[in-house]
């Protein structure tokens, strides 16, 4: 609970964060940028968890635990994604999204 700040303001913030992530995910051409956008989306959800925990159920800690859990999973996911991108780079010498279309075939 932060003095003078309502839950709606913080949820608005996390929504903005989420849609920035979505926008980045759809429009970026670079795989790394897309990965960063995904991180933004995840962070938006982490903020939501923490805020709702704090404002709605102040005497519980589940939201906090889940947020830590999400951070850990996100780290693992990032490691995985980066390794895939590196392997892809070795194959096609590019990290551009449109070059990965060959994987369709």
């Amino acid at each position, binding site marked *: 609970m932060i003095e003078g700040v309502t839950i709606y303001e913080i949820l608005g913030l996390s929504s903005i964060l989420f849609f920035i992530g979505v926008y980045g995910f*759809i429009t970026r051409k670079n795989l790394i940028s897309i990965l960063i956008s995904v991180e933004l989306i995840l962070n938006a959800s982490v903020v939501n968890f923490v805020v709702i925990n704090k404002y709605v159920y102040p005497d519980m800690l589940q939201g906090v635990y889940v947020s830590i859990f999400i951070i850990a999973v996100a780290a693992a996911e990032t490691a995985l994604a980066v390794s895939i991108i590196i392997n892809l780079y070795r194959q096609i010498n590019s990290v551009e999204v449109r070059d990965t279309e060959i994987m369709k075939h």
Partner: protein
Amino acid sequence: MNLNYIFLIPLIPLVVFLLLGIFNQKIKPSVSGYIGVFGLLASTVLSFYTAYQYFFISGKINGLYQTFVEKTVWMNFSDTLRIDMGVLIDPIAVMMLVVVSLISLMVHIYSMGYMKGDGGYTKFFAFLSLFTFSMYGLVLATNLFQIYMFWELVGVSSYLLIGYYYTKPSAVAAAKKAFIVTRFADLGFLIGILIIGYYTGTFDFETLNNPEGSAILNWAATSFMGLSAITWALLLVFIGGAGKSAMLPFHIWLPDAMEGPTPVSALIHAATMVVAGIYLVARLFPMFYFVEDGFALNIVAYVGAISSLFAAIIAITQTDIKRVLAFSTMSQLGYMMLALGVSGYEGHEGLGYMASMFHLFTHAMFKALLFLGAGSIIHAVHSNYLKDMGGLRKYMPITNITFLIAAIAIAGIPPFAGFWSKDEILVAAFEHNKLIYYIGVLVAGLTAFYIFRIYFGIFWGKDKDYEHAPKESPLSMTFPLMFLALMSIVVGFIPFSKFISADKSGFEAHLNMPLAAIAVGVGALGIALAWIFYKKENNLAEKFANRFGVFYTWAYHKFYFDELYLFITKKIVFKRIAAPIAWFDKKVVDASMRGVGSKTIQASEKIKGIQSGKVQDYAFSFIIGTVVLAIVFIYLWTI
């Protein structure tokens, strides 16, 4: 009686078949022949041991030959109706074991010489083993379904062996013809089996054949179109038997089956497979005899008699020696059928049954000998036709003597085997049905005539211009000839009636002197006529043929049965029935299915652009979809 080892009799040929079939390319031809022969030798020894055990040691209890059955449940339909697999040992099964083993062994040995240097040597022996296995299975079957299964298996092996020279179009056509014709007849057999199963609730021979059993006593309980349903079933079963045994009108496949290698003709199309029909009727003999007072059995007798006469007449006119022998086989099979048909059941009344089995036994020996002899001749002169042969007695002394023995045996001259069995058949016919007896005597004369016609034609008369002088075949081929010749002389003296009779009790059969004299007289007359016509080359026979003119032409063309069948199948079945169905299939069934297919393809052509492979496009549609669903569920979905 211990039955455990009997399973080995069919299993050994099966193992040999698998061995030779799977390692077809790896086994040297010289080895594969020996594998086949020794495998079969083991089966033969076991068969003879079984026969000895059964007939002389443990088969007879209280003056009756017992039926021993060893089986396991194979398919269980209901508490009463089920299909078993197993072996059944009774006098005719043991007798057939001996016949099949002996002839098959001789044919195996003979084939080692006859097929030497052939490209498919190993394959040939594999097929022979498959056939022998199936035939053993058929003989030992405990119920109608088991016999039906092996019945089809012998059909398949017959098909494979007729079409053995698969590069020859005529052989392929003959194989197909044999398969389709017998298969068509087997349809009747199958329906008969199902009717029997439906009304009696069992397939087991033991239960069906029990004269005091419900299957036989309750035959009158059901009726269909004036006859008992069981009688219909038996007639249908007999159609199956007639197909395999080349009775009218299903005989058309047998002459064409001569396209196969000659040892195959000797084994399958003379001695063993074609008697399966006889065996089937004999197997169900109590049913045939007791149901509806032997109505079905009468049909059997007449079909047998007519086929016998019909085939004997055709045999006189044919010029291909193997075809003469084929029609002769058909004629003798008709003899066996008619003997079964005129048989009674108890004691001496069952003479026909015993005579039929006896003739089956002796016929197997001398007909196999005739075929193997013909094979030896064909091997030497490279032709099947009588016009290419003549004066061969100087070149092929062993073949000559053995062929002569077989010819005398089939003509029914004492003391050779054919005389004894044929005489019993004629006595049985005389006692029960005079008309059939007269047909039998006429056929006996015709048989003597046609067999000596080819004998004189082949071994006497002038030499033809052979490309190189014909020479006697190797020992592997002449040994079976000599052995079977010996058999053709001695098997007639076996007191068959002691071992095999319809009611399994055995009886004393006596020679009926006047009837025997008539039969021998007619046979001798036939031989004498053949002597006059064919011993020296002259045109007597031609003159005679011209005298009979139309009739001769009809007989030469086998009474146009093939043409009739072709007409029925091509003009009526194919054109009027099959063609409209094919049209419907193509234009309606196939077309509607194709329409569905092409419409699906068109639709997918249109929408396949959506799947672009761009990750971000997918993500975009995913998000739009989520938003739309969220709007729907939150604001619009109000109940």
